[in-house]
């Protein structure tokens, strides 16, 4: 069970960042009206506002390195919490920016997950 949670968490993270780096508008498939994002302290709710925020971010070309992925079953919700840390190398920047991000994935009736909670912070 534990390994399955880790596999799901890692698969989700790979999928999320692949869309982020290659097809950001497609990230709308990951969120629902109840979804919440806090991005560097800015709070947003719902698919539209979240995708608007994500597609406006200046990270057009960035090289991302994932350092750690930790996943646990959220139990009460039937979902999974995923905690990611890594770095972003933006063009023109001398040093990579470190970041941490957490997701609370909630199960859908179809058997996959959507992002209920999403919190992103750069680590200065």
């Amino acid at each position: 069970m534990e390994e399955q949670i880790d596999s799901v968490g890692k698969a989700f993270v790979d999928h999320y960042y692949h869309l982020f780096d290659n097809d950001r508008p497609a990230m709308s498939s990951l969120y629902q009206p109840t979804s919440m994002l806090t991005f560097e302290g800015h709070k947003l709710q719902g698919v539209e506002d979240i995708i608007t925020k994500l597609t406006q971010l200046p990270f057009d070309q960035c090289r991302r390195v994932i350092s750690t992925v930790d996943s646990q079953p959220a139990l009460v919700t039937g979902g999974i919490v995923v905690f990611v840390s890594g770095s972003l190398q933006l063009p023109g920047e001398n040093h990579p920016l470190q970041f941490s991000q957490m997701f609370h994935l909630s199960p859908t009736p179809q058997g996959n997950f959507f992002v209920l909670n999403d919190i992103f912070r750069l680590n200065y």
Partner: protein
Amino acid sequence: MEEQIDLVGKAFADHYYHLFDNDRPALSSLYKPSSMLIFEGHKIQGVEDITAKLTSLPFDQCRHVISTIDSQPSFSGGIVVFISGSLQLPGEEHHLRFSQMFHLIPMLEGNFYVQNDIFRLNYG
């Protein structure tokens, strides 16, 4: 509603790190048998094992300094709290930076217990 979530998240974080920095065994009051901790990649479950892990860390004294706290409602009254900050150890010149997430579940008495707890140091 939003501000209340932020207040609860901040109050919890202050309480947690106060206990951690001053009365580490008392952290057991925050966990239940179903609670899960991942501490720097080590997975632990249940009050006893979690408290044993936290009280056996290789530093007796420490001080957590919080830089950012982000909170969101999760489901059925639960709260996810995402924290970044620095950990100061006596005698150490450089502070260790860390990120930590909690998934708090409400209890009948009106307070919360920690269902999910993930801690990572931020290197680099």
